[in-house]
Each structure stands twice: as structure tokens, then as C-alpha cells.
């Protein structure tokens, strides 16, 4: 099975590239929402927490988001997906930065 870190050609839309298992059908995954929302420090202000918990940039275009390969390797990872087209531009392990393959 192709385990290479699959970065998306256009044809990899909701065929989600798990950084470990390779491209898999969306039904194997659970959505985790905006990956850019940063959890504040434990001593951060209530305002910071309100922002983290409630406010979203909700971009119309490339969106960095979290997915869990819930029916697969149980890894949480990052996906950059265009919310206008569902094209997946890239994916990365949870602790890596997303790098888009040059087209």
C-alpha cells in the first residue's frame, strides 16, 4: 500500500491523503476543524480563550484543517483544502508544517 506522504494533485479531493497510509476515502476520516486556531497558554486571558474556542477566519479558499484517520491509523494530521472547490492542496503530519507541492 502506498504509504508515501501524498500531496494532492487536483484529483485528490475528498480522497484524503493520510501522511501515513496514503490517499484514502473520506469515510475513513473524522473532521477536526480549523488547524490554525492555537490553544492559548493555560494562564491566558479569558478573551484569548473566547477567540480560540469561538472565532474562526472561515476562509473562502485554502483552509488548513485537522483530520483524524479514525478508521485507519488513528493519526490526527493537517490538510490544506480549498473550501471553494474541495481540492486538497497538501497534507502533513501533525507536527510538520504544510508544504504545497509546486504545480
Amino acid at each position, binding site marked *: 500500500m502506498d504509504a508515501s506522504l501524498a500531496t494532492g494533485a487536483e484529483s485528490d479531493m475528498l480522497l484524503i491523503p493520510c501522511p501515513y497510509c496514503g490517499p484514502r476515502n473520506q469515510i475513513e476520516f473524522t473532521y477536526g476543524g480549523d488547524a490554525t486556531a492555537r490553544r492559548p497558554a493555560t494562564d491566558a486571558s479569558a478573551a484569548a480563550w473566547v477567540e480560540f474556542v469561538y472565532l*474562526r*477566519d*472561515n476562509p473562502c479558499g485554502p483552509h488548513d484543517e485537522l483530520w483524524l484517520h479514525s478508521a485507519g491509523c488513528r493519526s490526527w494530521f493537517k490538510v490544506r483544502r480549498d473550501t471553494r472547490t474541495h481540492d486538497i492542496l497538501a497534507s502533513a503530519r501533525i507536527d510538520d508544517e504544510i508544504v504545497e507541492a509546486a504545480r
Partner: protein
Amino acid sequence: MKYSIFSLARNAVSHHERWPLAWRSPSPKPHYDAVIIGGGGHGLATAYYLARNHGMTNIAVLEKGWLGGGNTGRNTTIVRSNYHLDANAHFYEFSLKLWEGLAQELNFNVMYSARGVMNLVHSPADMDAAMRRGNAMRLNGIDAQFLSRDEIARRVPNLDCSSAARFPILGGLLQPRGGTVRHDAVAWGYARGADAQGVDVIQQCEVTGIRVSGGAVTGVETTRGFIATPKVGIAVAGHSGQVAAMAGITLPIESHVLQAMVSEPVKPVLDTVVTSGAVHFYISQSDKGELVMGGDLDFYNSYAQRGNLPIVEHVVGACLALFPNFGRLRLLRTWGGIMDMTMDGSPIIGKLPVPGLYMTGGWCYGGFKATPASGFLLAHTIAHDAPHALNAAFTLERFAQGRLLDEKGAGPYAWAH
């Protein structure tokens, strides 16, 4: 020209060649007293009530596409006020009351069909929740009845009420005054009504920026030039986040895709709206005969107005689990809309932090039924620069203050409502 059986007859004689325009297509003026962004039901209703209730007629509705082309034109048309939390209950009940007289108010038949909305109950826990909600409705003066399984079997003959069913039906909560409304007619009726009062309803005009100077709104940039105005009302549903961002405001909203679908038209088989929370499914039959169905979100942020197969499979699976007799009917068309999902599942209707800026949005699954009330109340808020009692709770600040209106208790996850 007033619409009626008589005007129809008169025009029949002249082969319908004398009907006037339902609305003009004016080009934007350089200045308006108020501009409403979004030519869906909410935007058009807001304009209509600004003119009708507050005498503001030098106003415009700006629509980037065609009137009603957003969620107004693609929703499953269910109207109801069967809410649990007080603020929601009073707001949606006010809306339902407006629906009851809207056809006459607008002289446009929006076909408010009070055929009843039935929520099925599948477990003792469902039963408690439904009873709690129904009792809250009744104490708030809203019609509600609890139906036994036999009563449901009688009213909805095609429903599988056997105890063998995967989701056995223990009973159901019915709101008799709930029902459906012809969705497109709502946009058209309000557009015609607003236009008749002098409102400029402008299509193919996208707002690309909101100009703020001296800390207050001064106008909007559009694809047809700058338009000066001291008051801007945002009614763009799925695009709320985008438009608010033009004024530097971040909202507690995510845009997700919700799909809906229709079957081929058949002779009447379903006389009420049936919904089931446990299986995430709702269905009604349109006057043309299609079964109109919907269910869950696709569960990922999207502005694409189209979804994927798994949800369609789930919705139809749920349909057939409840209505096994429909197995040989055929799916005619599926589509999607961009849902403005808030973090507590309730809308935001009122003033935004920038003076002169107002919004109605954050509708989640259920803003069509809110159309008249939302327009009525946003118009009030714009005219008085202060909310009406009925929308006072739907503020943007409630999230920071902890005054959430989380009807389902689903928590701060946009896609969970």
C-alpha cells in the same frame, strides 16, 4: 397590478401580454440611506420592512447573483417554532405569525402550508427531551401536541411504526402550525413588495468591500462602483464571515455544506413534515409531488454548494428505514447550500462592533423559517440603531459573556448544530 383570480382572467384575454415587471432592474445610485447586502429572503425582507415599517425607501438591496439564488432558493422549506429555549421560541413564533399572513401582506402567494411538523421519538431519552420541549412551547403559548405511536401511524400511513424497526417509533411531538412555504416565492414576493415601495433591488452587484472611516461605516465597494451609505445591513448567510471580514470583524461562524435532495414527483404519499433527530433526517412532499429530503452536514468547511455521496447515502438510508415503501421511488436531483453555522447553533441578529454595521446571519440549518422575523427585526434594529426585544438576545457579544443559546447543548463546534 394587484394579483388575483380577476387579474388572471383579465390577462388571459390579452394572452398574458400585459403583465408588468415584478421588479425593476435599476442601476445603483451613488448614495442610499441604507444598503442591504444580500438578495436572499432575509435581505429582501429587511428592505421591505425598512420601507414598510420605518418609511426608509431610499435604500438598496445588493445581490451578487440572482435574487434568492443562495440558501433561500435551495432549502427544504420547513417552517416551525418548536424551540426549547425562550429566546428562540419567541423569535421563531413571531416569525410563524408573520408567515400566517404573508401571502396577503405581499399580495404574492407564498403558499404557507400549515400541514404540521412532526418530530419522531425513538427512545425514552428522546421522549423526555421531546416532552420537555413541547411543554416549554406550550408554556410559551406555542401550539404543540404529543402523539402516540398509533396516532402517528394513522397520520403517516407509510411510516414503519413496527417495534421491529431499527429506530422504533415510540411517539412524536407535533406542531400543527408548522409546515412548509414555497421558498422561491418568498424571495420574489419580498422583492416585488420592496420594489413597489421604491426600494432598489439590484442583481449582479457584488459587494467587495465595506468602507469604514472615522470608526463608522461610510459605504460599500461593489463590482458596480462605490455606493455611499451610513448604514449597512449584512444578510449573506453562508458568506457572513467573508463580508464581516471586509469590516475587520471575525465571527463565531463556519461555512459548511448542507445537501438536500428530491425524488421524482409522485401522487400524494405524505401530508405532514416528518423529522427524526436520532437518524438526522427530515422529509416532506412538495405540491408538485417530489419528496424533499435532507439530513446532516457533510462535516467539513465548504463554500462549494455541492457535497459528496456518503451523506446522500445516509439521508436516503434513513428515509427508507422510516419509509420502507419508498424504496422503488427514484432520486431526481441533489444539491447543496452554504450554511452559516454558529458556535451555539443560534443566529446573530443585530449591531456589529462597527457603528452603522448590522447583520442577520448564523442560521445553521434553520434560517428560512426565520425570514420574515429576521427582516422585520433587523429593519427595526437598523432604523432605531438598537435591537428590538425579540432579537436582543441574539448578539455577537453573547459568546464572550457566556449567554449562549445552545438549543441542542452540542457545544462550540460549528458542525455539531
